[in-house]
């Protein structure tokens, strides 16, 4: 299929640039003033939805590899997963800074230890009080160890099996992310439904395959 050279020097950089698209679009909108009347909503929505997109695309890598038999697909997975974490982090920072930090009563212009404490308290209370934020936060925090252990060195240190087990946490992140989206929408749940369908489909396919792998073993035991 595709040569090592093509993947490494053409396809990967191309996907990397494409993955920066939403980020570039936001920067462009900021520089040219083409945000809507509510720039915070634009940024929050775009970064949040991009996180879900990259979670879906990352989860699609294994099924794609299995269906097409193209093992080269696996070489994009880490980058795609890290982009999910990247957009998730931007999404969280937007909320912490523009929604929480901005609402604090601060002594003008000076950042003090008290401000940090107040911010932590404000974020903590909000997460505790609002289930949809709690889920969003869960989706992000679960991704953090995956991003930290995404290097080849960490895979070696953890050992393939343990690493793989740990990285199944992405399922938790994707489900929490979809429910987070669902619960924040006021009435029109068509978009969250779409993501639920995609994530659901990608998880069911895995379950299906793992069942059909187990079945022959079960027959052998019965025999």
């Amino acid at each position, binding site marked *: 299929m595709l040569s090592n050279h093509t993947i490494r020097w053409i396809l990967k950089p191309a996907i990397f640039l494409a993955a920066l*698209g939403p980020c570039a679009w936001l920067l462009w909108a900021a520089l040219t003033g083409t*945000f809507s*009347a*509510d720039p915070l909503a634009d940024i929050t929505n775009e970064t949040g939805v991009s996180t879900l997109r990259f979670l879906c695309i990352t989860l699609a890598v294994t099924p794609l590899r299995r269906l097409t038999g193209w093992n080269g697909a696996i070489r994009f997975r880490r980058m795609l997963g890290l982009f999910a974490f990247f957009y998730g982090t931007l999404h969280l920072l937007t909320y912490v800074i523009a929604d929480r930090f901005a609402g604090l009563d601060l002594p003008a212009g000076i950042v003090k230890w008290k401000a940090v404490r107040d911010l932590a308290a404000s974020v903590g209370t909000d997460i505790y009080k609002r289930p949809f934020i709690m889920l969003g936060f869960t989706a992000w925090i679960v991704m953090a160890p995956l991003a930290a252990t995404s290097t080849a060195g960490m895979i070696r240190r953890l050992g393939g099996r343990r690493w793989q087990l740990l990285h199944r946490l992405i399922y938790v992140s994707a489900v929490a992310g979809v429910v987070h989206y669902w619960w924040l929408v006021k*009435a029109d749940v068509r978009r969250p439904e779409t*993501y639920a369908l995609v994530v659901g489909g990608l998880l069911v396919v895995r379950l299906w395959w793992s069942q059909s792998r187990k079945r022959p073993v079960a027959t052998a035991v019965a025999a």
Partner: protein
Amino acid sequence: MLIKPPTSIPSAEITDRKLYLNRREFVRAVTWVAGGAAAEVLGETFLQAAQPAPHGRKLDNVQKSGFSTDEKPNTWEQITTYNNYYEFGTDKEQPSLLAPSLKTEPWTVAVEGECNKPAVYHLEDILKGQTLEDRIYRHRCVEAWSMVIPWVGFPLANFIKKCEPTSKAKFVEFTTLSDPKQMPGARVAVLDWPYVEGLRMDEALHPLTILVVGLYGEALPNQNGAPLRLAVPWKYGFKHAKSIVRIRFVEKQPLNTWQRQAPTEYGFYANVNPTVDHPRWSQASERRLPGFFKNHKTLMFNGYADQVASLYTGMDLRKNF
């Protein structure tokens, strides 16, 4: 060569036509869903940009009002491209793209219920003899953003008096246009159409409550609820019924659409109140658009406490949210 008669296919092997059609439908449905999902996952960014409303007819003889705030109003572009008007779609920019084709002339409002003058009124008759006023109001959405909007309108009380409500009229119910032919959003059952709102009689008669027909001294753009909408500045935006087609005087408290949708989140009164949070977000502060930060302190009754607090003396506003 022997040509077998078609009967040699055992009838059991012929796919039932209904099944066959079902299968085709199924494949088509799966293709649609997968295609739709892919488009959704990849393409949400490329939504069409909002379109500010074209400037409308200049309204004559508009008076100034002591009720106006001296805060700086939002721009025409901001006010006409950022709208919650679900009959034209649930994205904020959709009404600016889909509402312009709404036909607002001729327009009638049916007045019904507990009153001596029930009738179908033409908009011109409703406006006859009314003095239009500039009312620059703070507008606070339940979603914790706010704007300052220079409405043009007249007190709802003036029109209510013309209808002569009886002593049984304790509440006023407003029904807004729901025309799936003209309003693409109304074809989708995201809310229970038509949109219904209501006010207690004393709220409806309050001098701050106005029927709006204009913006910035011009005829009201469609995306803002043309040709006739409510402004009740001490209440959250969803109380402001747009494109009103029916006003009904009733004895019992109407069930407004959002309360019907989610009674734990939206009440009947919906007074702006920084001390009562919406279950999913705090109401203590707001984003004054186009500002980026949620750092604008929300005021009790949206800053109109001096005028309206007395309407609610003795009421538990935590319960009556």
